[in-house]
């Protein structure tokens, strides 16, 4: 008996295993294959995109090498291209955007999840989500015709006269420039960060709040010492999500940043971001090297967003492991 079954397994390995598990239905198998195909499709699209970008960028990579990242010139006539001002502009405008957006977003999320009465909370949340749905070209248009003049005078004038000793606030107030781009980006990422952080805060267990209140905490202390630390990783995730959008935002930024290839600490100065540079020049680019440089620029942006996402994941993982699976 024993021998027979042994023989069967050696002859047909895996047969017993298959018989043991119930045979999946035909529909289930088709469904599983179809979803597998979709999942692979996404990976293929990503890989194809990367390969195509690399091939097209190759002339520029070959010509400039690593100096592409450190060079500050962008001269289509002499065919000299460098990415540094665009990288700088991208990071600077996103940083300004986050500096403005994070306090506003976390603040409004705290209000919506902890303090607002129900009748106010719902319409407020709805409006904030609507803000995220406005097409960026409309925000850009509003930014160029309404916001930029206001930033030129009085905001930049006032900053220049009162904080002009700082290198960030020197130079003539153009209106269009890094500051305007940053403010536009703030407006565009506030809804995302607010909505995500509100949901994250709502998910904090009521026991955490009551435990803090029962120790004699005021509402402010309950929020800052129990709620916010508990959902810290989620808040980091929300901010990174906003940063991801800010880095890649194209249309509105192109409209208000001024599009001048500048590397200067002054926030008043016009500049470019990677996305705005690519968007405003791809149609007139001619020659393999020019097009290749634009595509390499795009690859750099791809790399930056990838890096940001990896850092975000690491931060979130770390703060989860600090929590150690509690509750």
């Amino acid at each position, binding site marked *: 008996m024993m021998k027979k079954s042994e023989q069967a397994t050696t002859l047909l390995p895996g047969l017993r295993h298959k018989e043991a598990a119930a045979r999946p239905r035909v529909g289930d198998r088709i469904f599983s294959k179809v979803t597998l195909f979709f999942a692979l499709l996404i990976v293929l699209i990503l890989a194809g995109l990367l390969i195509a970008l690399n091939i097209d960028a190759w002339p520029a990579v070959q010509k400039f090498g690593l100096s592409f990242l450190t060079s500050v010139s962008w001269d289509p006539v002499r065919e000299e291209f460098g990415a540094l001002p665009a990288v700088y502009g991208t990071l600077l405008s996103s940083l300004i955007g986050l500096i403005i957006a994070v306090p506003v977003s976390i603040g409004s999320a705290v209000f919506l999840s902890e303090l607002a009465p129900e009748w106010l909370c719902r319409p407020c949340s709805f409006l904030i989500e609507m803000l995220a749905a406005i097409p960026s070209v409309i925000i850009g248009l509003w930014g160029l015709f309404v916001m930029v003049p206001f930033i030129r005078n009085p905001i930049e004038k006032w900053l220049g006269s009162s904080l002009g000793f700082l290198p960030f606030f020197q130079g003539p107030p153009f209106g269009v420039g890094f500051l305007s781009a940053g403010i536009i980006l703030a407006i565009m990422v506030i809804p995302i960060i607010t909505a995500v952080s509100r949901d994250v805060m709502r998910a904090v267990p009521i026991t955490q709040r009551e435990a803090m209140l029962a120790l*004699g905490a005021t509402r402010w202390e309950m929020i800052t010492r129990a709620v916010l*630390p508990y959902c810290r990783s989620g808040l980091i995730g929300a901010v990174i999500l906003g940063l991801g959008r800010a880095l890649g935002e194209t249309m509105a930024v192109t409209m208000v940043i001024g599009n001048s290839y500048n590397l200067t600490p002054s926030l008043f100065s016009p500049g470019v971001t990677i996305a705005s540079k690519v968007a405003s020049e791809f149609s007139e680019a001619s020659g393999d090297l020019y097009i290749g440089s634009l595509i390499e620029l795009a690859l750099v942006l791809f790399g930056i967003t990838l890096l940001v996402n990896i850092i975000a994941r690491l931060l979130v993982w770390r703060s989860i492991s600090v929590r150690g699976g509690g509750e």
Partner: protein
Amino acid sequence: MMNDLFRPIVTAEAPDKKPALHEPPRCIIKVKDLSAWYGNKIVINDISMGIGKQAITALIGPSGCGKSTFIRCLNRMHEVVEGGRVSGQVLKDGQDIYAPGVDPVDIRRRVGMVFQRASVFPAMSIFNNVASGITLTRFWSRRSDLQDVVERSLRKAALWDEVKDKLDQPGSSLSGGQQQRLCIARAIAIEPEIILMDEPCSALDPISTLKIEELMLEIKKDYTVVIVTHNMQQAARVSDWTGFLLLGELIEYSRTREVFTVPKDKRTEDYITGRFG
């Protein structure tokens, strides 16, 4: 269903309608005509009782009888819940904690609370968990100033020996029973006069339960303890006074010994002998 169960009993008790209530000689809290609602639903119906100083008072009763709500009224935590409303008086040392102008934050510092589920703050270390209540009242404090209080509280909570070498690890790294004792240490650290415990052992294993019961007997010397429990053996083991609540009303309140040996009310007897619950 429940009403059917009680009808004959209630009629049997009808001549003596007054609940069987006794009061401890030295009361730290006197509750007068306390009623509590969630929205329109009444959960505590006109309860009056005194809570003995430096004693353990246990509140027993079937689920949903309002025990938890009742002790949440003693440190003004009931009003934290949306729709929570209270009427009547809770006199602590003769002063109504519901009087206008009384700050609930101030009441909660003097009447501490331990919850059913250990609510350790996961983002804080063990040390900071214990210190979290003390640092609320201070703008800034050095670790060396807190060291003593933290150690004393952890010792009282019978947790010091288990955590003294890992005070900087997150509080959530402890086991369930340890977390609950950490919560007790945290409540003790602010040195309240009264500690309310809302089913503190219901999620714990027997050994952790035993440790917490020993701990209650220990801290009784300095504090007044009010404990809500589903476990009647626990009430019988640790408490000095026992109150039996049913459907928001206080049915019987007396010395634990008397409640468990010679209950005056038929419903109490039915409950403690396990005929319903």
